[in-house]
């Protein structure tokens, strides 16, 4: 048996006795510099250590680490020759420092601190700013700390070997979780506490929208990922009412139509619809009043004032969410708002105001708001077809998409989202802008629908880098040959496929262990770490006496994937745009799905299949891959890996065919995915075409759909369209080019995207003329 030892990276290398001998000789020379003999005990010590190593391996099936061996050398040496022992210890210490000095680590920190090598890992962070530099440098430290002291050797090896990526490693050690859908209904109705004060419930639509921005900001500081509102139109209904009745009272008072105090003595206005005469629960006296009121000046005044207040409130929110760099001073919170299903007049007003605000844009040149990511919730019978009550809003949404790229489209009727409660919009399918979604909660408390979205989010993700596994499977087959377990000869392709699936299965299990490991670490944090979150119950189901696990267990633990297309190319020389590739793609996704289902039952935690955004990973994973395997045609001849199970962006394919292909795989995902298509900017003159495309995607059971429409913006005159080199209006070349990065937008992709994503963006082809 070959003796092996474990290097600091966790990698196994053959045990080399000679190295021990040489190290001891060096220390000996240090002490007795005038002698030219060699210490007789060097080989003896090396032999002794070899025996220990042998025992370790045979009896315990474990390996000595480099540090263990050095400890042993120290012990033995001190017995043989104290002075040489001391010299060895000193040497080892000095070496340790040298190693630390020369490592990537210090270099990386100083790079970040001085912003000398800006990579734009996350398009939302300004890495040049003071805040960005502090944040990025400390991230570097936190990452190293997590790898060296927190994660298991298995997890570390997977991460470093480009096999399973640990996302947001910088937030690992401190024990933060990823993202959350905020229960705005409760927070706005009950108010909330902060460290310095408490905030009263909202009493008008204006305040309610301001508080939405404040709450988004506060919650985003409790976590490393995004925050969302799952049904903002419904959420805002009571506050539209409050504002309306307030204005109505004012109208009565000043327009001299009577004494308002008399009419409203016993009515809770937050529950009273604007069209109260249609509402059976309101008492008779009020019904009579409001029916009359509708024809009065006071009513018209109140409607007008409410609409104006709502419009201003929405504009205020858009501006707040694009200006409050509230995350360590260098980052906007990643915010998303879902809306579009509320058919009450007040909810419709809100959706309309949100879309009008999106179309209008922000700032002097009415630029496209980067945040929040708008998500229009498509729902059959509500907004999909002419005659549906909110069809007009769907059309307005399409108009906004044509001009602003947002909103994206969530499919409430998605088959995996079944089981929602039609009477509870908190259970309708909604997503985080990037794509993360919460489906059935295995820990739903009795009385709570498992499809509840509010108060839930992703706890932590890992991503399996599929192309690495495919290459490893290839290496194995090349080494052991193509015989199966019974000794039958297989064709190469089949042997490779079997080997790959075996390896993938092993890695899916390791991914699960990595998630459990991180979940436990997150659960071990004190509720004091995220006071806003736990005090105000923004996370569902928190019972202080049970600890924060009671809340975290409702979130998702997700196994992501990167580069399905390239993986299939390695295995079969074709991707899933071919029938053969698709067959294997389905087998791969089925394995992910089956295993996540089993883990969910076994551990009673919400494991799920995730089609990872991989904004930075698409590039860094490819860089590592190329360094190891070189440039392989159709696999590593680009600067990035293809996103999750997407069709490669450079593949010429029609809108409908792309949807047909990706929709065959979206059903395997239970924790989030997105499908997008590239559409020319001229589509703003053809909303019917957009409607056909969105409805096609919804009918094909795509859960989350987005249209990429190039949006260039002249920074000098404000002209917006797909612009060539020069602005057609003023001739300026100072152009910002807005593109989608993962699900979210960013500013100018030429400056805000990382290198891999820049290449990817430039290689995108249109899927329709």
């Amino acid at each position, binding site marked *: 048996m070959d003796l092996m030892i474990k290097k600091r990276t966790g990698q196994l290398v053959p045990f080399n006795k000679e190295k021990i001998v040489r190290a001891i000789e060096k220390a000996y020379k240090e002490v007795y510099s005038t002698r030219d003999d060699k210490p007789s005990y060097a080989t003896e010590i090396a032999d002794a250590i070899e025996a220990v190593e042998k025992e370790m391996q045979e009896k315990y099936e474990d390996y000595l680490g480099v540090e263990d061996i050095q400890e042993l050398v120290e012990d033995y040496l001190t017995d043989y020759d104290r002075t040489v022992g001391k010299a060895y210890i000193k040497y080892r210490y000095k070496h340790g420092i040298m190693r630390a000095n020369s490592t990537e680590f210090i270099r990386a920190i100083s790079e970040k601190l001085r912003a000398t090598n800006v990579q734009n890992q996350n398009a939302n962070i300004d890495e040049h700013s003071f805040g960005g530099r502090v944040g990025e440098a400390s991230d570097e430290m936190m990452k190293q700390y997590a790898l060296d002291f927190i994660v298991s050797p298995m997890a570390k090896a997977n991460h470093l070997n480009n096999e399973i990526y640990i996302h947001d490693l910088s937030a690992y050690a401190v024990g933060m979780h990823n993202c959350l859908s905020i229960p705005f209904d409760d927070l706005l109705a009950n108010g909330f506490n902060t460290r310095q004060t408490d905030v009263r419930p909202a009493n008008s639509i204006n305040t309610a929208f301001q508080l939405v921005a404040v709450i988004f900001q506060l919650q985003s500081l409790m976590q490393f990922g995004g925050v969302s509102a799952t049904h903002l139109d419904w959420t805002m209904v009571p506050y539209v009412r409050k504002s309306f009745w307030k204005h109505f009272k004012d109208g009565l008072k000043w327009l001299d139509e009577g004494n308002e105090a008399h009419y409203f003595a016993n009515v809770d206005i937050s529950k009273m619809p604007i069209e109260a005469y249609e509402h059976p629960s309101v008492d008779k006296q009020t019904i009579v009043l409001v029916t009359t009121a509708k024809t009065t000046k006071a009513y018209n005044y109140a409607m007008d004032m409410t609409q104006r207040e709502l419009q201003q409130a929405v504009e205020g929110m858009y501006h707040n969410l694009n200006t409050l760099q509230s995350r360590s001073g260098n980052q906007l919170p990643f915010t998303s708002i879902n809306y579009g299903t509320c058919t009450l007049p007040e909810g419709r007003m809100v959706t309309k105001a949100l879309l009008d605000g999106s179309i209008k844009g922000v700032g002097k040149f009415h630029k496209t708001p980067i945040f929040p990511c708008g998500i229009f919730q498509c729902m059959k019978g509500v907004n999909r077809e002419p005659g549906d009550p909110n069809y007009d809003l769907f059309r307005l949404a399409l108009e906004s998409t044509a001009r602003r790229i947002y909103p994206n489209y969530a499919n409430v009727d998605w088959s995996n989202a079944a089981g929602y409660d039609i009477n509870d919009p908190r259970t309708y399918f909604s997503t985080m802008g990037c794509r993360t979604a919460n489906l059935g909660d295995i820990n739903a408390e009795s009385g709570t629908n498992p499809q509840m979205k509010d108060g839930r989010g992703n706890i932590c993700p890992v991503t399996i880098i599929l192309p690495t596994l495919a290459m490893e499977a290839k290496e194995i087959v090349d080494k052991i040959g193509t015989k199966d377990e019974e000794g039958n000869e297989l064709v190469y392709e089949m042997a490779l496929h079997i080997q790959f699936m075996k390896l993938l299965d092993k890695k899916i299990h390791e991914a699960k262990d990595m998630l459990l490991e991180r979940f436990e670490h997150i659960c071990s944090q004190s509720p004091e770490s995220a006071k806003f979150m736990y005090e105000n119950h923004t996370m569902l189901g928190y019972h202080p006496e049970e600890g924060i696990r009671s809340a975290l267990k409702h979130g998702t633990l997700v196994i992501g994937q990167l580069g399905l297309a390239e993986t299939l190319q390695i295995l079969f020389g074709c991707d899933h745009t071919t029938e053969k590739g698709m067959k294997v793609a389905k087998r791969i996704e089925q394995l992910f799905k089956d295993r996540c289902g089993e883990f969910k039952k076994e551990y009673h935690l919400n494991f799920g299949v995730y089609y990872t955004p991989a904004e930075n990973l698409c590039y860094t994973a490819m860089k590592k891959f190329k360094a190891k395997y070189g440039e392989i045609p159709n696999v590593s001849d680009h600067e990035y890996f293809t996103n999750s199970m997407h069709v490669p962006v450079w593949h010429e394919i029609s*809108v409908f065919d792309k949807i047909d292909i990706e929709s065959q795989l979206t059903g395997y995902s239970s924790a989030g995915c997105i499908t997008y298509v590239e559409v020319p900017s001229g589509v703003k*003159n*053809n909303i019917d*075409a957009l409607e056909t495309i969105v409805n096609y995607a919804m009918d094909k059971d795509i859960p989350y759909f987005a249209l990429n429409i190039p949006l260039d913006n002249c920074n000098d005159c404000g002209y917006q369209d797909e612009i060539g080199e020069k602005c057609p209006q003023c001739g300026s070349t100072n152009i910002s080019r807005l593109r989608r990065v993962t699900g979210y937008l960013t500013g100018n992709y030429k400056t805000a995207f990382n290198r891999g994503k820049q290449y990817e963006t430039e290689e995108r082809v249109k899927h*329709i*003329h």
Partner: protein
Amino acid sequence: MSKIAGIYWDDTAAAPGISLSVYFSGCHFHCPGCHNPEAQDFNYGEDFTWITISDVLQKLKKNGVMRTLSILGGEPLCNENLGDVLRLIGWCKNDYPDLKIYVWTGYTIEELEARDDDDVRAVLRNITCLIDGRYEEDKRDVTLPLRGSSNQRVIMMEDYNV
């Protein structure tokens, strides 16, 4: 035999909704500022054949999406192209009686009627919408739906008695 300057199987830049757009080659008008000057040449592009028609028929409802047939040019309604345009329309209508067809022509509808030609009448009777008139550079207006200059008209044929 006509020539085809190009076909977009999925097009958002022609009729409302998704179009299958066929561009016929050749035009006598030579309007200054023409959008497709290369298609003014009657020899530009590929031959229009039975294969063209069968491709169009196959792809009009690909993926289950009913497209609008958009016919543009060049000039589809000049005498050189008229026969093949009518043939294309005939076959498509035969397979899809409810098919919407949009035709862009440099002739005005009055000029077309004055030709007193059965083939022209057959085209006009079978299409949904005609966008007519020369492109006039000084009347260019890119904000107009479906048209390039303000003299051109969008004529819904159901409102028109041919």
